[in-house]
C-alpha cells in the first residue's frame, strides 16, 4: 500500500522526510514552541470555522447569533471560550519563542527570516485578537472598536483609512462584514504563511547544521516528536481548564451606542492602553504610534543589530528585549491594579455584568429583527410600558411625558399626590384637564363663597393617612389614620360625596381601595361603574377586546409601581 500511495501521491516520501528530519543536538525543550504554535493555529482555524457556522456578521444579528451559540447550543460556549483563550495562548507561545531564539542567539545567520516571521506572526496574531473581539458586537466589542478605530484615525491619512475599514462614517453592518472578512480570511492566511515560514525555514537551517556534521543529530520522530506532542497535550489541557473554570469567554450586553461602557482592551493590549495615559492631547500619537512603531522596528532589525554590534551585540539585544518585556509587564500590572482599585470602574462593570445577564436571559426568547438592544423589548416591563404608551399616555402624564387631559400618574396616589389633590383637585395635575369639576379645593384657608371650612395641614395629613389605609397599604401610621377616620366621620366634607363601604354609590367615586391595583384595574375597564365615576365618567372604557384580564392586571400593577418606592415598601 505504501508503494501504491508513493507512486501516485508522494505522501509516504513526505512523511519519511518529516519523520527522519535530523534534529541537531537531539530533542530539546525549546524546539517545542514552533510545534505548539502550529497546533494552536490549526485548532484556532477549526474553532473559527465552527464559529463561522453559527455567526451572522450584521449589526442586527451579530450579538444575537453569538448569544444563541453561547447560551443555547450545547457546548457552544466551549467553542467560543477555547477560541478566545487560544489567541492568548498563541501570543504567549510567540513571545516565549522569540525569547528562546534570542537567548540561544538563533536569530543569526541563516535564521534571520525565522525571527522576522515570528515578529510578523506576533503582530498578525494581535490583529486577529483585535478584530475577533469586535465581532460579537457586544458592549465590549463595540466600544473597543471605537477606541481602536480612533487610534487608527490619528495616523497620517487615518480619517480615510478609518472610513474604509469601518465601511462608512459610522460603525454598522459594513464594519462587521469587513472585519469578519479580515479576521476569517485575510489575517489567517497571512498568519499561515508566516507560520509555514517559521517551520520550513527553521527546519532548513537545522538540516544545514546537521550536514556540517559538527553536532550529534537524532531523527525527529525518534524523540522530538514525542516531546512536541506532550507539550501540545499540556497546552490543550491548560486551555480546557481555563475555559471551563471561567465558563468561556465573556459576552456582554448588545452594543448600545449610548451606554458609555467603560471599555478595556484585551489583557495583551492593556500595556498600550496604559501607555496612552502618560501622553495626553497632542502627545498621544507618541504612545499609540511612535513607541510601538519604534519597538516593532527594533524587533525586526534585531538579527542585524547583533551582528553589527560585535561582542556587546548579544547582551545589548537581550537587555533591550528584557526592558521591553519589563515595560509591558509593568504597564499591564499598573493598569490591572488601578482598575481593581477604581471604585467607579468596578461599579460600572458590575452594572455591565447585570445588564449582560438580563440581555442574555431575554435573548433566550429570541431577539426581534431590529437586533441588538431590541432584546430588551422582551422585558415584561417593556411590554407593559408599550401597553401603557398605546392606551394611556395620550391623556395621562407619567414621568414628564404624556397628555394633560387626565390626572397625572407620576407618583400616582402617593401620600403627596393625595394631599395635593385634596388641596387643589382642579389643577392640571389632577382633574384640571377633564370635565370633572365636582370637587372643591380644600385649602388651609377655606373658602367662604363655597362654605368650605379651612383644612389645616395636620388634619390634611390625618385624612391622607386614613386614605392611605383605605388603599390597603401596609406602612400606615395607625394613630394618624385613626385621627383621619374621626375627621372623616365627624367634621370633614369628604363623606358627603365619597363612600367607603364596598359597592356603595356616592356622587364621587367610592374610595375603598382607591389607588390599589385592583381599583386601578376597575377604573381602566370601566370607570363609569356606579360606585366609581358613574355616568359622568370621561375616561374611555377598555373592554376585554382591547386588554385581556392578564394584561390589565399587569398594566394596573405597572401604574401602581410608579409610586415612589419608599411608599410601597
Amino acid at each position, binding site marked *: 500500500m505504501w508503494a501504491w500511495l508513493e507512486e501516485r501521491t508522494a505522501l509516504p516520501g513526505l512523511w519519511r522526510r518529516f519523520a527522519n528530519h535530523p534534529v541537531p543536538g537531539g530533542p530539546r525543550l525549546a524546539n517545542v514552541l514552533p510545534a505548539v504554535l502550529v*497546533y494552536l493555529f490549526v*485548532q484556532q482555524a*477549526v*474553532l473559527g470555522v*465552527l464559529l463561522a*457556522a*453559527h455567526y*451572522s456578521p450584521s449589526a442586527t*444579528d451579530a450579538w*444575537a*447569533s453569538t*448569544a*444563541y*451559540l453561547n447560551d*443555547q*447550543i*450545547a*457546548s*457552544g460556549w*466551549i*467553542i467560543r471560550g*477555547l477560541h478566545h483563550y487560544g489567541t492568548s495562548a498563541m501570543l504567549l507561545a510567540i513571545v516565549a519563542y522569540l525569547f528562546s531564539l534570542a537567548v540561544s542567539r538563533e536569530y543569526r545567520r541563516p535564521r534571520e527570516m525565522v525571527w522576522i516571521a515570528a515578529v510578523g506572526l506576533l503582530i498578525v496574531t494581535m490583529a486577529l485578537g483585535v478584530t475577533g473581539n469586535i465581532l460579537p458586537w457586544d458592549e465590549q466589542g463595540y466600544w473597543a472598536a471605537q477606541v481602536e478605530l480612533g487610534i487608527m484615525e490619528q495616523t497620517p491619512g487615518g480619517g480615510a483609512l478609518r472610513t474604509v475599514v469601518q465601511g462608512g462614517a459610522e460603525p454598522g453592518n459594513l464594519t462587521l462584514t469587513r472585519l469578519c472578512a479580515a479576521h476569517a480570511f485575510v489575517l489567517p492566511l497571512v498568519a499561515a504563511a508566516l507560520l509555514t515560514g517559521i517551520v520550513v525555514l527553521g527546519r532548513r537551517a537545522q538540516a544545514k547544521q546537521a550536514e556540517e556534521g559538527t553536532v550529534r543529530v537524532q531523527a525527529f*520522530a*525518534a524523540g522530538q*516528536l*514525542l516531546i512536541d*506532542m*506532550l507539550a*501540545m*497535550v499540556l497546552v*490543550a489541557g491548560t*486551555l*480546557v481548564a481555563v475555559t471551563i473554570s471561567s465558563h468561556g469567554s465573556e459576552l456582554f450586553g448588545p452594543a448600545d451606542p449610548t451606554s458609555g461602557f467603560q471599555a478595556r482592551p484585551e489583557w495583551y493590549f492593556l500595556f498600550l492602553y496604559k501607555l496612552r495615559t502618560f501622553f495626553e492631547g497632542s502627545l498621544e500619537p507618541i504612545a499609540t504610534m511612535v513607541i510601538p512603531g519604534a519597538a516593532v522596528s527594533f524587533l525586526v532589525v534585531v538579527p542585524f543589530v547583533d551582528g553589527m554590534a560585535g561582542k556587546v551585540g548579544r547582551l545589548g539585544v537581550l537587555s533591550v528585549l528584557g526592558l521591553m518585556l519589563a515595560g509591558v509587564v509593568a504597564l499591564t500590572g499598573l493598569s490591572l491594579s488601578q482598575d481593581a482599585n477604581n471604585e467607579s470602574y468596578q461599579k460600572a462593570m458590575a452594572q455591565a455584568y447585570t445588564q449582560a445577564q438580563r440581555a442574555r436571559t431575554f*435573548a433566550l*426568547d*429570541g*431577539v*426581534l*429583527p431590529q437586533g441588538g438592544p431590541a432584546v430588551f423589548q*422582551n422585558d415584561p416591563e417593556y411590554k407593559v410600558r408599550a401597553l401603557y404608551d398605546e392606551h394611556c399616555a395620550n391623556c395621562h402624564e407619567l414621568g414628564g411625558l404624556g397628555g394633560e387631559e387626565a390626572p397625572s400618574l407620576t407618583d400616582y396616589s402617593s401620600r403627596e399626590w393625595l394631599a395635593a389633590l385634596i388641596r387643589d383637585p382642579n389643577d392640571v395635575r389632577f382633574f384640571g384637564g377633564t370635565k370633572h369639576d365636582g370637587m372643591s379645593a380644600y385649602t388651609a384657608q377655606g373658602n367662604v363663597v363655597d362654605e368650605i371650612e379651612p383644612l389645616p395641614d395636620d388634619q390634611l395629613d390625618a385624612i391622607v393617612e386614613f386614605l392611605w389605609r383605605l388603599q390597603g397599604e401596609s406602612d400606615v401610621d395607625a394613630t394618624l389614620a385613626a385621627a383621619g377616620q374621626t375627621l372623616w366621620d365627624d367634621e370633614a366634607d369628604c363623606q358627603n360625596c365619597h363612600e367607603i363601604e364596598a359597592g356603595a354609590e356616592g356622587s364621587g367615586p367610592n374610595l375603598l381601595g382607591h389607588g390599589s391595583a385592583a381599583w386601578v384595574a376597575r377604573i381602566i375597564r370601566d370607570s363609569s361603574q356606579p360606585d366609581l365615576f358613574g355616568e359622568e365618567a370621561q375616561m374611555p372604557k377598555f373592554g376585554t377586546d382591547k386588554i385581556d384580564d392578564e394584561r390589565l392586571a399587569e398594566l394596573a400593577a405597572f401604574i401602581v409601581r410608579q409610586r415612589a418606592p419608599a411608599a410601597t415598601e
Partner: protein
Amino acid sequence: MLAGAGARGVCVAGVTAAPAVSVLIHPLRTPTTSGSDAYIPVGKLAQFVGTTPVKVDLFSDTVDAWNRAVHVKIGSAWVRQDAEGQLVAMSTVCPHLGCAIDYDADNSKFICPCHDSFFSLDGGVETGPSPRGMDSLEVQTEGDLVAIRYQRFKQGTDAKEPV
C-alpha cells in the same frame, strides 16, 4: 513510539472535536425554528359560507434560531364548507414538491401549476404527480371566530406526516 504520539494526537484533537460534534448536531436535538402550533384565528364564520374555497393567510409569531418575529405570515390555507356544511381547511402547500396550490374557479378544481397536479374540491388527487390528496388542517370554531392550526407535512410521500 508512534503509538504514544498517536494517543497524544487523539487527546489534542478531541479538545476541539468533542464540542464540535455537540455543536454541529444541535439541530438534531433541539428545534431551531418554530411557528405557532396553536390555533390561529383567520376570520368570522360568515366569511366561509358555501362550498367555494376561500384563501386565508395565517399569521403567527415565529422563532428562527436567534430571532423572534412578531406576526409574520407563516402560510396560507383554502377554507370551505363540505357537503355536510362542515368547515374544512387545506394547506396550499402541494404534497408533491411544495408549490402553492391555486383554485381554478371555472372548473371548480384545485390545480398545482408546477407539475400539473389536479385536486378535486374536497382535496383528493384527480391527475398529476402528487402522491396524496391536499393536506387538511385542523379547524376550530369558537363563537363566530374560525381558527386553523397550521402545520407543514413531508413532501413526496404517500402518507401525510407532519415535519
